[in-house]
């Protein structure tokens, strides 16, 4: 007698949202990029090597010595107060003037996104993202089943006229937008920076339509050229608004292994978020926070940022030069003034997801564009991270990539 094989006896119990969680060939292919022989432009991995882990030992020792048993205990749900003080000093460098009471500490920026999604999104709610947008944010939001509205970007960031039309259209239908999610500085994945005028306009729109802006700023301090643009949070504070929730992280200016991020938000929102932390993980690792506190109490952290900037800007320059030297005329790319990523656009007939297997066989990896869109676009686009590989490997990898792409263009044309 034939029987149906059941691998998972609990299938009938899962929430509907797990339906999107599938094995993916892209994820499997990209896991190959961890191999040392693969030149990886895929993951945006910070250059932690520059910190020299041996030099961090003293902060770990100090955290244990000063904190003693308490450093091994649960901490407060809103974060370790002395670290908050240090974070206010970090933010001051970007002209954001806030107090310790205006923030909570989270387990990385990713938890900040998840907590915000958790407290704001009901199934079917509307939220707006720039398009392309950070995959980690999209996935976090999607698990709360919202309707995600994508607004395209150009080299000055999200296109405000499109945003205005959409907000107006939704308001006419009596639909409330819960928030607008933006990475205004050297966006992940596009590398574009939102212009000053657009920042002001978006803030006004948020005010007009009574909604929030989530400003995610992981890369703001990693600027390699040009003048800094004020954060939307700064503009929000200066105009005495309360429309901006600001998120940042120590992953890029210190190290991602510590898993420390933070949220600056109006106090009632912080209260909800703190309750959210209590039900998520009680508190961010107090040991991690104490080590980070020690590190940011030593002025050396500022020198290390200068070192990071030196390393990343050289890598960006080499990647852009190599793209100009090797890539076919039909391709275009963003020229970020900071951050980790370059956004590549190929002729429309090329599908970056389909080319990936070939490039990985030739030992180069990148992330295909579709994952950064909530609506399935981005087939001919890709994200190239310049932060991970050294300059020699960047040049080599871009050359290999260019040869494969040129080859594909030729192949495609043979069908015409």
């Amino acid at each position, binding site marked *: 007698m034939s*029987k149906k094989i059941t*691998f998972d006896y609990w299938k009938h119990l899962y929430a509907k949202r797990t339906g999107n969680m599938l094995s993916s060939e892209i994820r499997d292919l990209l896991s190959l990029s961890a*191999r040392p022989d693969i030149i990886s432009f895929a993951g945006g991995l910070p250059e932690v090597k520059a910190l020299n882990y041996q030099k961090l030992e003293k902060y770990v020792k100090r955290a244990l010595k000063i904190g003693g048993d308490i450093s091994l205990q649960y901490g407060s749900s809103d974060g370790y107060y002395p670290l908050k003080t240090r974070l206010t000093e970090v933010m001051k460098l970007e002209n954001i003037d806030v107090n310790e009471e205006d923030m909570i500490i989270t387990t990385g920026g990713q938890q900040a996104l998840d907590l915000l999604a958790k407290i704001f999104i009901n199934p079917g709610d509307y939220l707006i993202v720039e398009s392309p947008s950070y995959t980690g944010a999209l996935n976090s939001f999607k698990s709360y089943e919202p309707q995600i509205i994508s607004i395209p970007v150009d080299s000055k960031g999200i296109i405000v006229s499109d945003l205005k039309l959409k907000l107006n259209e939704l308001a006419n239908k009596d639909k409330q937008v819960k928030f607008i999610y933006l990475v205004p500085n050297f966006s992940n994945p596009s590398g574009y920076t939102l212009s000053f005028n657009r920042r002001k306009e978006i803030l006004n729109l948020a005010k007009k339509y009574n909604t929030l802006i989530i400003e995610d700023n992981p890369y703001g301090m990693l600027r390699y050229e040009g003048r800094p643009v004020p954060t939307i949070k700064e503009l929000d504070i200066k105009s005495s608004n309360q429309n901006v929730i600001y998120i940042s992280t120590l992953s890029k200016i210190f190290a991602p292994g510590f898993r420390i991020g933070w949220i600056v938000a109006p106090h009632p929102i912080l209260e909800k978020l703190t309750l959210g932390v209590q039900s998520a993980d009680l508190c961010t690792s107090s040991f991690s926070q104490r080590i980070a506190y020690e590190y940011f109490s030593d002025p050396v952290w500022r020198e290390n940022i200068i070192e990071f900037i030196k390393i990343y800007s050289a890598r960006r320059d080499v990647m852009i030069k190599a793209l100009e030297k090797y890539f076919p005329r039909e391709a275009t790319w963003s020229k970020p003034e900071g951050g980790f990523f370059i956004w590549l656009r190929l002729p429309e007939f090329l*599908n970056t997801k389909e080319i990936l297997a070939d490039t990985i066989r030739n030992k180069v990896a990148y992330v295909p564009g579709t994952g950064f869109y909530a609506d399935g676009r981005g087939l001919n686009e890709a994200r190239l991270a310049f932060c991970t590989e050294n300059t020699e490997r960047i040049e080599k990898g871009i050359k290999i990539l260019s040869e494969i792409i040129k080859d594909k263009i030729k192949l495609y044309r*043979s069908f015409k």
Partner: protein
Amino acid sequence: MKKNIAVLMGGRSLEREVSIKSGQRVSNALKKLGHNIIKLDVDEFIVSNLTSRKIDLAYIALHGKDGEDGTIQEILELLNIPYTGPGVYSNILSFDKITSKQIFINHNIPTPPFYFLNESSFRELGTSKLLPVIIKKLELPLVVKPSAQGSALGVKIINKQEELPDAIISALGYSKKVIIEKFIFGVELAVSIIGKGSPQILPIVEIVPKKDFFDFESRYSIGETDYFIPARLSPTISEKIKKTAVRVHNALKCSKLSRVDIILDKKEKTPYVLELNTSPGMTDTSLLPMAAKEAGISFEELVDKIIKLSLDDT
């Protein structure tokens, strides 16, 4: 008796992740069977890793390139290390689907009608002009696939002529030759075979993917495919399928182990052979362990059988 067994996994293939899952599972089983396990990723150090210690047997848990194309088998032959699964010759024949399909034809084993084209022929010989001819001969829908790749990577089903170029370009990302094959409407079946001469044929697994075909997501996401075992077939048809599978196993000179993938045509009830796998998956959702379980063979017993066959061979 306790043996030193190297489990070869990972490697350079695009199926690396699946291979690691297979390898971990096999390693756990071997440990429970009381053997010494050395897990080896197949990278530039593989030769020195294999020669620097005493190894009684290499368990090949690799999928795709290097593991199923004869490369690792040739290395192990050179080092006089016994290994699991079929030998160099079978791997070479089965890895290239064009070669294996030609062998099926020579042995009068039904396989879906197909044509193959080289990547360079599109650019240098203008063979794209032949696509309408192929469509006329085979009729839509068609299956486009790379000649050498596992886990259905690069495989596409096309229903319209205009979809053909993209599907071909995609398949050519995986290998230098592309197969354009007639799509057979029918039931997907997998027959696992252990042993040689008169090998043991495990119960047939029937695969019913929720999507239009058994693609990567359907293979490795639990719940995306329904499996029926033994397949819902009449005894006569079952027998016919098993006989066909053994003919394939023998035609490709497989010893020890193989899994034959077949589509049973709905109308004519012809078992069309798609391919033979020399290193079938050993993950939680893989077909060989599933079939073994139905035959009353636990995962550990299956692994034990596979290694004993390989040790007996030497």
